[in-house]
């Protein structure tokens, strides 16, 4: 029997959550006032959890490294949020959303958690509308839905291309209400640098005030980590510049197991890199693939001519183009799931067909869509004799109405008009399905320490479907954690305030201060970014879209060497007791340098291909699926949860076996 207990309630899948809620221990309102909860991170998960816990009466201390909770990176999510409302009457249901999510995750998520997620999804929409979130509506004044990749129903609610922003501002407004009431004490521009354990339980954190550099002790009866994912281990990703894994990594080092670090989502439609100075990548909504056709030239001569500027993509005839997704996946074509589309782009570019100077770009072409829509409009308008230019204009208007803001964003960044010349896209790191291991209660292996949102691992398995991240963040924060945390805190009603003048806090503080001083006094000769870029390069080349044993072994040793060099030679200018962005970065990169190695180790251990994790050794060898990812359900239907033991290479693997009672495991086929 594994040391891991998922604490999934017994009984029928469909009634587990209801039964759980019926029997969970509650804390009475008067006692809630005596209990403090720390929430680290104020994105969708942290923001919604802070607001809800405060509403219930707990004293919440919320922390974010930005200057306001409203700036958390959930704000950048574009597409939408899934919910099993079945407003479109197209056969959607809780079960179907659950099924799609488990299947989309390539059968590597925990059934009970996903079912609960699907169950509360409808409440999220109700809650957000009541909060004043301006979701898109149809002319009848009812909520509109769109369809997203990999599913057969329209269940995605959206607010233009800024759904994440609107949902986050909704959570932020709920927080503001509680801040005004004094129930949330907000610590902006604070970074959690360690968790404090007393008698084995999480009882507080050590945080640095980023303005003054002061190291502060904060105590609470429970600590909630909602600090997002670790995509920035790649340096270049669609994450915000400040997005980091420090809070998650610190709790890992203090005893929380880290699950499935190798599950990373690489999003296929991002704006390509333009040079070495690139600081981050910008995502273009997946919805573009509904109308865009992806291609590269068939001949390498044309590729060369395009790179040298002698030819333009529009010069190439249809016969000279290779619509490789349509060629390889006739059934789904350009709408294959994210991981498949990304790998196919990489395959073409690795073969030398990349169309920009860096060789890492493919075309996303809207010409066919413009003409198709143009002809349709001409028919609607009764213009039977419309010439090509007129048809183009009519079609362009339709495309502009659908994707105008994305096209404008592209033009601002790339300085090319995507209506006239095909867009260039390339995959980029976008989301990390892996994270801190949590049980059904969302509690980590440290009692009293919880992880929610992207920071935990539970709901997306090996691959996340579009519009599911927002759903999970808000489900955890608004509707799951507030119940489950009460069960734990009901034992703490007599504990009283946790003092911070204890040896445990002192020791943790000293550890943090020592680490900071070591950086400041190091006086090395390379900047933090120098190391971060090197790490990113190793991760991208060897733990990126496809992985193999040799590369992963190299990555493990290269990261270790890089980490040692980092501690010897990193240069952190400025002082500890002031606003010092380089110092902030140094601490984060130090953690990435450990996480990256564990990542590679996890990827090495998992010799199957599943979801975002593609092992070159594990592919279909023949038949219709030849060359596609081959999952190994016999040997790998488990969660890899790593226990920290010093160096990442010493980490111990614990397996949580996954049981699928309500779903039959199948191969994902898009041919």
């Amino acid at each position, binding site marked *: 029997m594994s040391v891991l207990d998922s604490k999934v309630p017994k009984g029928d899948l469909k009634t587990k959550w209801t039964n759980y809620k019926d029997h969970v221990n509650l804390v009475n309102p008067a006692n809630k006032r005596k209990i403090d909860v720390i929430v680290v991170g104020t994105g969708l998960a942290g923001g919604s959890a802070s607001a809800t816990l405060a509403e219930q009466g707990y004293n919440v201390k919320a922390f974010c490294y*930005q200057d306001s909770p409203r700036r958390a990176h959930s*704000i*950048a999510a574009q597409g939408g949020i899934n919910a099993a409302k079945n407003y479109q009457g197209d056969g959607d249901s809780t079960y179907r959303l659950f099924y799609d999510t488990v299947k989309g995750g390539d059968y590597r998520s925990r059934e009970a958690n996903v079912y609960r997620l699907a169950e509360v999804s409808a409440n999220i929409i109700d*809650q957000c509308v009541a909060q004043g979130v301006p979701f898109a*509506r149809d002319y009848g004044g009812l909520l509109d839905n769109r369809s997203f990749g990999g599913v057969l129903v329209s269940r995605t609610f959206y607010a233009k291309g800024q759904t994440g922003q609107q949902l986050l501002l909704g959570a932020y407004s709920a927080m503001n209400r509680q801040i005004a009431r004094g129930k949330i004490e907000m610590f902006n521009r604070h970074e959690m640098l360690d968790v404090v354990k007393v008698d084995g339980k999480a009882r507080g954190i050590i945080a640095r005030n980023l303005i003054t550099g002061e190291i502060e002790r904060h105590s609470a009866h429970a600590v909630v980590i909602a600090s997002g994912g670790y995509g920035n281990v790649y340096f270049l990703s669609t994450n*915000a510049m400040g997005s980091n894994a420090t809070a998650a990594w610190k709790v890992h080092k203090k005893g929380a197991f880290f699950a499935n670090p190798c599950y990373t989502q690489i999003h296929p439609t991002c704006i390509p890199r333009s040079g070495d100075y690139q600081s*981050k990548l910008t995502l273009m909504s997946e919805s573009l693939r509904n109308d865009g056709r992806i291609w590269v030239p068939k001949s390498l001569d044309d590729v060369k001519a395009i790179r040298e500027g002698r030819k333009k993509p529009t010069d190439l005839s249809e016969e000279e183009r290779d619509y490789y997704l349509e060629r390889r996946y006739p059934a789904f074509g350009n709408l294959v799931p994210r991981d498949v589309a990304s790998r196919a782009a990489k395959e073409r570019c690795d073969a030398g067909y990349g169309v920009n100077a860096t060789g890492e770009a493919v075309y996303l072409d809207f010409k066919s869509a413009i003409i198709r829509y143009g002809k349709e409009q001409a028919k609607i308008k009764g213009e039977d004799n419309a010439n090509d230019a007129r048809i183009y204009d009519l079609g362009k208007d339709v495309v502009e109405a659908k994707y105008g803001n994305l096209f404008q964003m592209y033009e601002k960044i790339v300085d090319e008009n995507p209506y006239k010349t095909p867009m260039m896209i390339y995959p980029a790191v976008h989301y990390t399905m892996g994270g801190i291991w949590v049980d059904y209660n969302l509690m980590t292996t440290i009692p009293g320490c919880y992880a929610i949102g992207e920071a935990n691992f539970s709901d997306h398995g090996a691959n996340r479907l579009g519009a599911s991240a927002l759903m999970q963040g808000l489900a955890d924060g608004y509707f799951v954690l507030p119940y489950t945390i009460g069960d734990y805190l009901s034992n703490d009603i007599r504990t009283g305030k946790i003092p911070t003048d204890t040896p445990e806090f002192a020791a943790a503080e000293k550890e943090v201060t020592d680490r900071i001083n070591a950086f400041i006094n190091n006086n090395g000769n390379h900047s933090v970014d120098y190391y971060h870029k090197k790490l990113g390069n190793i991760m991208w080349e060897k733990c990126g879209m496809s992985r193999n044993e040799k590369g992963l072994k190299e990555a493990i040793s290269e990261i270790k060497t890089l980490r040692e060099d980092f501690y010897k030679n990193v240069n952190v200018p400025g002082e500890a007791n002031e606003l010092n962005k380089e110092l902030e970065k140094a601490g984060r990169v130090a953690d990435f340098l450990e996480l990256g190695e564990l990542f590679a180790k996890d990827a090495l251990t998992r010799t199957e291909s599943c979801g975002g994790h593609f092992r070159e050794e594990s592919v279909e060898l023949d038949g219709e699926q030849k060359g596609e990812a081959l999952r190994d359900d016999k040997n790998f239907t488990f969660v890899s949860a790593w226990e920290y033991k010093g160096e990442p290479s010493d980490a111990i693997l614990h397996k949580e076996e996954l049981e699928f009672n309500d779903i039959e495991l199948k191969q994902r086929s898009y041919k």
Partner: protein
Amino acid sequence: MNLTLKIWRQKNASDKGKMVTYPVTDISEHMSFLEMLDVLNEQLIEKGEEPVAFDHDCREGICGMCSLYINGEAHGPDRKVTTCQLHMRMFNDGETITIEPFRAKAFPVVKDLTIDRSSFDRIQHAGGYISVNTSGNTQDANALPIPKKNADLAMDAATCIGCGACVASCKNSSAMLFVSAKVSQYALLPQGQVEATDRVLNMVNQMDLEGFGNCTNTGACEVECPKGISLENIARMNREYLKATIKG
């Protein structure tokens, strides 16, 4: 490209601060403005000088963290972009670029180009919300149809990213566009009606207490707003305020 940068340097809130000139070389026109500053900072660190502190996070124009006043304009010379979306192709080789923090009494400088915009948060605490608990038992989201036009207008107002370019651009350092965007979003939705009176009075009151200036309708805010928030929102807030005053 090679450029000359004149940048505001200020050690901390109590330091007086001054403009300092830096040359910066090997800039690609495809870089974003912040990537250009990254290059400068790398060069400064190499020389053993302290890098320039500036706020930034998402680098895709949505978090509202970046707050630079470039060549006399909030977020620089381009329109409907934040500083992170401003690209160097907007500038000429050999150009001198001045970079200052957003300035207002209510936005004190923290360090160099980093400012404190917590006044915006406090305005939101004063009423930027609808008082509904997270019970999961609110009425069904489709129980109350909202005319598409109003939903769209509310969305347009809600796209505000709270960067403060409106305040920075306004000759009066007025925060009316920011406050009116939130007031408008809720005023346009039925869910916002219950608390409409208190909301507009309290938010305007807090705005005044924070030391922002008075609006004189110059319209600079609308022009410089990276999200194109319309002046119509300010007119709507004025109406709401009048209504609230009459209602008491």
